[in-house]
């Protein structure tokens, strides 16, 4: 059973976060990433999140994203990256069967 760890991202996420990378690499913890103090995500930040989730999956570590401010959650929604949406607890995209009106 892995221990649960939470890490809070503070300010702008523009590149990888060593502390989180190391924590994941240790293979000892499931991770919760708290975005409540995250103010901006760059393309590089998004790419790192996706890549980090891939590594976590290969290590069978659970990663979840919590407390996303709406502008950050919207970035995830618009980016359409499945793994990030899943970690955010976002519902899957709507089916196309809705009526147009």
């Amino acid at each position, binding site marked *: 059973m892995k221990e649960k760890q939470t890490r809070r991202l503070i300010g702008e996420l523009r590149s990888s976060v060593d502390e989180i990378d190391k924590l994941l690499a240790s293979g000892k913890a499931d991770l919760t990433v708290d975005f409540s103090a995250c103010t*901006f995500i760059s*393309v590089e930040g998004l790419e790192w999140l996706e890549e980090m989730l891939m590594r976590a999956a290969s290590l069978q570590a659970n990663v979840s994203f919590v407390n996303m401010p709406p502008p950050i959650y*919207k*970035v995830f929604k*618009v980016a*359409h*990256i499945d793994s990030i949406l899943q970690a955010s607890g976002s519902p899957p995209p709507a089916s196309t069967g809705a009526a147009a009106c």
Partner: protein
Amino acid sequence: MVGTIKDQDVALSERVNNLVRRARLAAAVFTQYSQEQVDAIVRAMTIAAIDAAQKLALAAHEETRMGLVEDKMLKNLVASEFHYHQIKDKRTVGIIKEFPEDNMVEVAEPVGVILALAPVTNPTSTVIFKSMAAAKTRNSIIFSPHLMAADSSNMTAKILYEAALAAGAPKDFITWVEKSPRLRRETELMMVHPEVDLIFATGGTQMVKAAYSSGKPAIGVGSGNTPVYVHKTAQIASAAMDIIISKTFDNGTECPSEQTLIIDSAIAEPLLEQFKKLGCYVCNLEEVEKVADVAIDPRKGGMNYKLVGQPADTIAAQAGLKVPKGTKVLLCPLQGNLRSHRLAVEKLMPVLGFVTVDSEQEGINRALDINYAGGTGHTAGIFADDDGVIERFSDAINAGRVIVNCPTSIGGLGGVYNNLNTTLVFGCGTGGGNITTDNVGIKNLINYKRVPKRSNFSLTFQTTKNIYINPGSIDNLRNLKTKSAFIVTSASAGRRGHLSAVLERLPGDCRVDVFSGVGVEPDFSTIQKALQQMRQTQPDTVIALGGGSVLDAAKIIRLFYDYPNLRIQEVALNFLDFRHRLAVFPTKMSTQLVAIPTTSGTGSEVTPFAVFKDHETHRKVSLIDECLLPDVAILDANLTKSLPREVTLDTAFDALTHALESLVSTFASDYTDGLALEAMRLIFEALPEVLKNGSSVLWRHKLHNAACLAGMAIGNASVGINHALAHSLGAHYDIAHGRANSVFLLTTLDYNKRIPSKFMSVSSYPLWVADQKYARAAQFLNLVPAQGASNVAVSSNLLSDEQRQAHIKALERAVYDLAEAVGQPKSIAELGIKQEDFAKALPELVRAAFEDMALRTNPRCPLIKEVESLFVHAYPPRQRP
């Protein structure tokens, strides 16, 4: 090593996915940018584009061998400097527009990932323009260049992207398809890629068509074929120069450029002379055929793409014409049937057709021939010094831009010769198979989120200005300012002595005419008769003396006397919301209206309503407007002393209905609530006393006041479903209005006290509170709740459900008991209507009630089946609640 076709397809697909994914991430990140960040990025891009304008023009010309370097540089500057000037102060982030009067704002949402096509004719300026537009609107953009101009287009994209990136733009928000033999295929794959949100197509017709066929939202352009009408009022010398400037601009590659001139014959000779003088060559008919042979592709009937953007010298040489060196434009007279002439099509080269015409009509029609020969929706031009001609031309021609007294090519670009939005993308509307006729720009790259806030109806309180209320107040007629009065009344006013009481008190020098023909529930023919009589004496005052029917008739008579051109069908038209209704009522009345009620019921002396009966349809018709309000009301209870018991009862129950309905109306306010409650209290108190002693002025006075207060309440809050049912029943069976109201009272109280099956959608009625209002009435009237409920005086909205129901039941019982005590009917059966007749009439009764405007302010939104059920429910004799 050579890969298989399958390998190549996989690689191509990977390239496409990679490009689109990068653009997608950039679009996501861009959503976080502020207006200030975006503006700084666009500024940096503009500087880079201006710096590189010449370099890019040279690159484009070298690669495409089309057009002129000088003009390509000008286009680069228009796309950057002019474009920037137009968009720099525009808001594209957050709230971008406010509509304070509509209580609404618009908020910008980026469109996302844009796939942008760049044409061979403008490979650099288009990329500058679209890159800046994308950045300003926080979109990412992938350029798909034309294969023959890919290097210069991609160079442009790279220069602008690097400048933007340095200014803080998201990585990869501008990307481009690299030049390769499979560039076209790569573009096609992106057009249908699920992560591309919008196709921004400028290019060949086939690519634009492919964009529109992709199933994606697309902004495309259509082909042009610009007709230019040179009217006889045109300034000949400047028109000639403008046309040359335009047709030689980038050697004619601009699609809004002139294709065929339509010249008034009166000025044809001097205009052609001017063209010659300025360096154009006017071909003879034989030469025209030679030019057509090279300029037109015989297989397709369209222009020969090999000559697009080539100078006139080159085209003349290919056609075997000997023209002076440096010839600017080859002018070709198009003789014969213009519609089928080979040169009557788009020619993006300095070859210009012309015809002469003998009239404005012929001029516009020939322009239409060119316009509809492949150029609908695009561009047209006119040179004229006559606004009428310009207007008629603009009205006839189907073009997104009608350029007046300017070169159509540079004029169409916008910002140089006129104030059109600068663009390199010319929307052609449905005429060109497009969604817009705009000079496409940033406004087309935004999703507009409209945020309308709730608009509450502005409630006002209005009533008759002067109300005299004491017994004996009829004496105030002595001071009435009138020289000529027209009295509208009924025959009974004479019998009861009311008419003589009025006549005695009018000023001595006042001429008086009397119309006594208003009976019970008059129709419009009665009003017309009164009007006919009234117009003979030309009075300045109308005095309405009588009950509700007389007062209502007088209101309509005054309205049509002051405004004889009004149409009754329009002013009586039903409406959902009077702010939007079709009828236009006057705002000022010139004839004074004095209302003297002789019954205590309708309160018509203080309401903006007037009802008459349509005897053909057996329905009641309502007019509602502030202009119907009388100027003076005289409430003299002495005039009601001789009122028969039955009329006293009927009218009092009408007033009680007004009070009960206005209290729970969706338009009720604190102002009307107070009036309604006090009216109820006075009726419950005074009516039994009046019935005991009909000549008691004190109690008559109280009842008279009650009716007036209730009238003020409905005058501002209106009535409800009880009136709709009563209007229908009363009109069908000729039942007095108040009596018809009374038979529904218990039924509608029971209906409105329940949580609606359908709520009323009225902005100013945010909460259904009818049950609380009824409970409040019970409290105000000091009615004893049924056993088990607390009688502690608390606000009605703080009562428990059980207490509230007990209060409502007390109110219902009070209404029942009053009717029972005074002998007023409480059910339809008591009116003597046979059940078989009623059952037969029921569908029509329901139809009429459902059309009644009184329903609009009822606290429950009635369903048709509920209206039917209410009629049925109101039929049998009632038990005490």
